[in-house]
């Protein structure tokens, strides 16, 4: 299990254990954490699972595909550490990961 801390836009923190193999998005959705909609269920088709990866974790979460990059390019409130959480696979190496959520996914 990897402990991941999801921080809502209003500062509410949710620290949960996520099974390696799931995506960071799936970890949030299965625990009903508000702020990640993930309407397409992880098909990289909707950009409603946008998160900001904590600076300390940017390298470990890997690089973006061209698809993810294009999708994010049009999302609201994009920052250099923006990612689509459906595209980050949870591994043991991500134990301790912190992600923050934007104000809105739409």
């Amino acid at each position, binding site marked *: 299990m990897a402990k991941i801390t999801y921080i809502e836009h209003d500062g509410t923190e949710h620290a949960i254990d996520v099974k390696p193999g799931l995506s960071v998005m799936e970890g949030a959705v299965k625990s009903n954490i508000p702020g990640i909609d993930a*309407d397409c269920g992880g*098909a990289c088709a909707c950009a409603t699972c946008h998160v900001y990866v904590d600076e300390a974790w940017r390298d470990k979460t890997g690089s973006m595909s061209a698809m993810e990059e294009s999708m994010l*390019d049009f999302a609201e409130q994009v920052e250099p550490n923006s990612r689509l959480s459906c595209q980050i696979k949870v591994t043991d190496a991500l134990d301790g990961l912190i992600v923050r959520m934007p104000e809105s996914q739409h």
Partner: protein
Amino acid sequence: MVGAGHGAGMAAANLRQYGFAGPITLIGEEPIPPYQRPPLSKAWLKGEADEDALTLKPESFYAEHGIDLRLGVRAEAIDRGAGRLRLSKGDDLAYDILILATGARPRRLDIEGANLEGVRVLRSAADAEALKAELGPGRRLAVIGGGYIGLEVAASARALGADAVVIEREARVLARVANQTLSDFFKSYHEARGVTFELGAEITGFEGANGRVAGVRLGDGRLIACDVVLVGVGAIPNDELAREAGLDCTTGVIVDEAARTSDASIFAIGDVTLRPMPLYNRLFRPESVPSALEQAKQAACAIAGRPGPPSEVPWNWSDQYDLKMQLAGLPFDVDEVLVRGDPANAHFAVFHLNQGMIQAVEAVNAPAEFMGGRQLIGSRRVIARERLADPSISMKEVAA
């Protein structure tokens, strides 16, 4: 809630997120908790996603959040006067607020042999499991209907090593939902991967041997031999319960922008609804997951006493082979169609315009066109056609 599919599961989750504290009961005919249907024709069918990936929430979620899941149970009737629901099993259930999320069922063909073993539809996880068990190397699949479901299943069947033939009544695939450019593109992409097509073909019946399907008989007399058939010819809303209770229905249950039916204490969401489409000034039955999820939020907000969510531009997606197709908007009142990019590179988008405003976009491996298009559809801006048609100008610039 009557129905325990994707929409109902999300409505329950949203209600808890929004602070609704009352008891929630989900009544579902299927034996399993809410799950996602889109992968059933795509990643799941190809074996790239497991059950866990389909499940919306772990089973413990429902008990932890005071959501009573009653599975394998059917709602038989709504007594609106008494605020009670009659169930196929157990006592009547009293309600203050009801959400109908009964979905739709696959249309079946009323032709000879339709009940033969091996003539299948795809809607539920059980349907998908039965279909998957029949696909594999050397198996011959006949798909009736060249819509998105049919094409997705044909692509998945090829990935599993099965042969696939798509039989379509119209002269082109996706005839009801897409324009000629897309139809031509998908047909040739599938053909290059071994799928064959019978277009403009009428089906007169299924022929069998020992009670099992062995072929599809066409109107011109030919028999297309096969081992399994998928009938993908559309869906019928499960609106009978609402109809019998006297709620306003036409094809589907009519709802407003808060997903409320003609009875203020009854909401309806998902494929069973005929809903307002604010950008297009009409009612429509989108039959899409994003629409169901938007309505789940609308209903949950209304019930929890929160302002409704911002109105979304309708959208949907389809995965076939290595293609990601994304659709935004609806091609209503179109007076001009414009193609950006080259279908030959499998990277293009078809824009549908009305008086210079984008009504809809169908994007193939073109996420920027989808995302930029979706924003422009919502903005109702008149766009510069020549810039939109020029792929050397980025979508970011076009949308700016």
